[in-house]
């Protein structure tokens, strides 16, 4: 009798815990769905072919957001081009070459600190270093470099994890065949780590595309109807455009639909770039299984 009631209590306890973890998962999903729904509900009305292909008109209260789409696309791709090689190379050094010791610990702490720096500080650094000191001006180049540094810790972290996840036995097998260390890393270790590295890049892409503060002083134009001709041109960018319309304009209420529409486009753009990375990753994963 006592035994039975104990069992029942244990069973109920278990059910209660299941319910709690299940609800937590549900809340997260609901939050995402809620945000997306809110954006679609408010922004979908603004989306049209003209909205996507025309520059803003009438003091940015009408027309499209095409220059901002193009600008954010360039800035994001630029940031990835800056951060991916540098980040992957650093991760290779940290995991494969460096002797674990004081220097490595200092570098790791530095990387983690970099990850914790507020994004506006990156913006000010970009302004001081790239825009002013290196005389790149407010440009795609300055913005991409600033965003690149911003997402560097993400890429390094993900790449390190990916490299560490490659079984040690692969390295041993290759080295034991009289293959040099560099050949082992480039032919065996990196190809096996590419899916994980791409995951890091996906996170980086999302961050780079969505940030406002780092590009505010380094790349983003308040308004320009012309598309950039070189990396030294200023560009409009989606997050900055939203910020401008929502805070600095004289028609804040009037442009609400445009703001939501822009946010929707920003999310779609990030998901689009992510999708490419995800497809590449799954193709590679299917080829490399162990």
């Amino acid at each position: 009798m006592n035994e039975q009631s104990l069992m029942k209590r244990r069973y109920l306890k278990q059910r209660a815990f299941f319910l709690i973890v299940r609800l937590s998962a549900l809340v997260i999903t609901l939050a995402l769905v809620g945000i997306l729904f809110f954006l679609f509900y408010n922004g979908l009305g603004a989306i049209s072919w003209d909205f996507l292909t025309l520059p803003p008109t009438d003091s940015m209260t009408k027309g499209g957001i095409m220059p901002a789409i193009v600008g954010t696309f360039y800035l994001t791709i630029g940031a990835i081009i800056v951060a991916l090689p540098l980040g992957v190379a650093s991760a290779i050094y940290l995991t494969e070459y460096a002797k674990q010791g004081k220097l490595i610990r200092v570098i790791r702490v530095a990387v983690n600190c970099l990850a914790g720096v507020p994004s506006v500080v990156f913006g000010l650094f970009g302004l001081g270093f790239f825009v002013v000191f290196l005389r790149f001006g407010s440009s795609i180049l300055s913005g991409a470099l600033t965003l690149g540094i911003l997402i560097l810790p993400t890429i390094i972290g993900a790449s390190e994890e990916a490299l560490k996840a490659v079984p040690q036995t692969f390295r041993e097998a290759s080295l034991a065949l009289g293959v040099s260390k560099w050949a082992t890393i480039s032919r065996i270790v990196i190809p096996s780590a590419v899916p994980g590295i791409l995951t890091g890049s996906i996170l980086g892409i999302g961050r780079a595309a969505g940030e406002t503060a780092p590009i505010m002083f380094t790349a983003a134009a308040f308004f320009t109807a012309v598309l950039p001709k070189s990396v030294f041109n200023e560009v409009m960018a989606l997050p900055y455009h939203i910020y401008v319309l929502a805070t600095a304009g004289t028609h804040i209420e009037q442009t609400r639909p445009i703001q939501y529409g822009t946010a929707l486009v920003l999310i779609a753009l990030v998901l689009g770039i992510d999708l490419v990375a995800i497809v590449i990753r799954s193709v590679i994963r299917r080829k490399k299984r162990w």
Partner: protein
Amino acid sequence: MKNQPIITTKNVNFYYGAFQALTDITMDFERNRVTALIGPSGCGKSTLLRLLNRMNDLIDQTRVEGEVLFEGRNIYEPDVDPVEIRKRIGMVFQKPNPFPKSIYNNITYAPRLAGIKSKESLDALVEDSLKQAVLWDEVKDILGRSAMTLSGGQQQRLCIARALAMKPDVLLMDEPTSALDPISTAKIEELVDELKESYTIIIVTHNMQQAARVSEYTGFFYLGKLIEFGLTEKIFTNPDIKQTEDYITGRFG
């Protein structure tokens, strides 16, 4: 009849940090013979094996004292490139560790990097190596398939074929059958018997019967020391030292 030793260790001490894993190991490994290294876990036999092709270089904070002579030359001299040593002294690991590549590419991976480019030479090398490892008949029609789809025993023979493709002089085997079923184990043992015609084999094993079956020489290790080393027959029938006898008869501990 004694053969020339191909590898000789002279008073080798080995340390992981402050821990001394091997003490004063002096032994000769004869050419075209199978030498078995036996002893309880942690006795240093695998450490010694990995010293012979400098695989212990990969572990931080290790230190070697004494000499490991390969064909008369100390492989721990500063001007010796471990990559060159490993080309001549191949290794098969405890767990089969094929690359996540096709069977064909597993074999050709290292030879290609070593400079063999022509398709005919590579094809011939694949066939030769797989035949030597007695795997050819099982895989000749699926060379393009991922090595990961093979069974454990087949994977291990593939790893042997992969090592043989570099045409080494010595093959080090670190408990090559401990992860395999009895039938695959028997196949690998037969293989060892055939391979000693052309290679020197040094095999670490936990399986006493295996050591008795495949080797000509056996070294018994305990707590980082070489307790007894001699003809397998003698070690297993009439060892000089009581500790060896206790271990072999299972009265250890």
